[in-house]
């Protein structure tokens, strides 16, 4: 168990190392002088020279990379051009909004998807199953943009029940949460369904019935736990993705999260902020994946053997 976690931690560190490499290379791939890209257009020649020295542009690329890494370890992700403040401060100030949205969206999605998926799997081939699958396909076919706009059109413009954009109250949370939750729900429904269908065919389920256990208990406990294993993995990945910023959703609803930050940083050519946001997102996604693997391993102890 401990060994397994250590090994996964090792793999995570390797992945993060590559992620720093990518974010480092990205800025240097851009045409033109990286120092210019890191600075506002109005920068003076002195500022440019200072930035060149800071980036070590006269030094070999390897040294430049080491300087970049050393900065990261000291918590120095660079300074945002737009805000004239350390990037990491800005990113951290945006995190709570993204986290809240992710949490709300996943809660909405899972509350719908898991019962629906389990029911569809249990009643394979029935009308319930067909409707659940249609619901799932519909969810996967809704472009985020379209779903968001449609929700606004119905609930804000026509019914006037909920605000079309903004942040702060529970009412503001509902539409963005549904926008995130619906696609998540559709994928989870399918996974829960196919997990259930597969598990119900297993020998150990027949043997559970042979012990006189009721269907309800099998569906909610003895097959449920097995069926949820693939769901945990994929939902984990999804949560990680949303934590990285639901770019479109945040943009549509003016939600002050990481995704919106990324878009505005790009719009303002704030490259240090783009670079550091990307890296922070990579770190978060990797950590969530690590946590998901550990949870999976706690639920299914066989994982540690592989």
């Amino acid at each position, binding site marked *: 168990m401990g060994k397994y976690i250590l090994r996964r931690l090792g793999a995570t560190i390797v992945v993060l190392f590559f992620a720093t490499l990518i974010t480092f290379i990205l800025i240097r791939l851009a045409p033109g002088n990286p120092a210019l890209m890191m600075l506002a257009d109005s920068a003076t020649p002195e500022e440019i020279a200072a930035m060149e020295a800071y980036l070590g542009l006269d030094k070999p690329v390897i040294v430049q990379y080491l300087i970049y890494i050393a900065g990261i370890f000291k918590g120095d992700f660079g300074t945002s051009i737009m805000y004239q403040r350390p990037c990491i401060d800005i990113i951290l100030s945006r995190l709570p909004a993204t986290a809240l949205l992710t949490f709300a969206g996943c809660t909405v999605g899972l509350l719908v998807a898991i019962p629906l998926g389990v029911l569809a799997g249990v009643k394979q*081939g029935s009308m319930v199953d067909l409707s659940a699958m249609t619901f799932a396909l519909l969810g996967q076919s809704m472009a985020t943009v379209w779903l968001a706009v449609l929700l606004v059109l119905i609930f804000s413009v026509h019914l006037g029940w909920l605000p079309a954009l903004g942040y702060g109250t529970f009412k503001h949370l509902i539409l963005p949460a549904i926008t995130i939750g619906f696609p998540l729900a559709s994928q989870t429904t399918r996974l829960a369904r196919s997990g259930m269908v597969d598990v119900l*065919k*297993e*020998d*150990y*389920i*027949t*043997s*559970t*019935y*042979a*012990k*006189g*256990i*009721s*269907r309800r208990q099998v569906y909610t406990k*003895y097959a449920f*736990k*097995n069926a949820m*294993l693939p769901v945990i993995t994929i939902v984990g990945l999804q949560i990680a993705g949303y934590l990285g910023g639901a770019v479109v959703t945040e943009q549509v609803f003016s939600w002050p999260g990481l995704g919106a930050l990324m878009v505005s940083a790009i719009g303002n050519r704030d490259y240090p902020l783009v670079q550091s946001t990307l890296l922070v997102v990579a770190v978060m996604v990797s950590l969530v994946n690590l946590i998901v693997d550990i949870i999976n391993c706690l*639920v*299914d*102890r*066989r994982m540690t*053997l592989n």
Partner: protein
Amino acid sequence: MEHALIEIKDLKVEFKTERATAYALNGVNLEIKKGESLGLVGEAGAGKTTTALSILNLLAKPAAHIMGGDVLYKGTSVFSMSEKKLRDIRGKEISMIFQNPLTSLNPVFTVGEQIAMVLRTHKNLGKKEAFQEAGKLLETVGIASYRLSDYPHQFSGGMRQRVGIAASLACNPELLIADEPTTALDVTIQAQILELMKDLQDKYSTSLLMITHNLGIISELCQKVAVMYAGRIIEYGTVKEVFKYPAHPYTKGLLGAIPRLDVDSDHLEVIPGNIANVHHLPSGCKFHPRCAFCKKECEQEEPAMNRINDNHYVACYINEGGL
């Protein structure tokens, strides 16, 4: 009149899949009396497991179709019982040991939880008491009780089968169905498991339906034996009678197929041909294409079960004609 514990009457079961229909059971008649231990023997695919699962009304739906016949438990049809009644019987009055201990235990629950669930369902025990009881059961089958909180993958195949046995004995059932409990195990482990079952049988005095293709096991554990071929019982009687005077050519073949050390023989007898294809069963007696004594009528009509004596029945024309 008191009913037998289990009466299977002319049971016909088919499995329908997209590609084909498998005729798994084609009119099985069988009786298990209280306290009796019956061996059900036959090659793979003869319908032994299907028979066992029918008794518990656990055939996999929607593929399995009961085309006719019935299974009576103490005189009541299991197919017409309420779900509730069935649940009360399963695991409490009739319990089952499965063939493959590697797949018949749920990998994400501890063995303790899996034994305790039977006790909690049928004996209304609380969580703590159920675990204590489960621990005792583990000890009976020769596993230290501290292993209750281990997961199945932490046990060897033989140990897992012991866990399966412990769970099936939890409520001291009237009938224990053992579906090839040793087939998936090493030979040395097989002997241990059989020894254990023999001890437990003496101790608990439950009826036993022992499904196997190993005749040795039957002669060790059972009083009666039923030989199955292509979804039918073709010979039935006491173990002594049937093994000594096998009447059906197939049974003779089966007995001949066991290498014997005490008889000097330079070749192993084998039954020619393969087991009947369940998708395309032959006409008449299902065994006739492989039978050395095949007559014209064998190809046309299925022979009925005939009494040889009180302890021996066979479904074969040879015996009718006194061949």
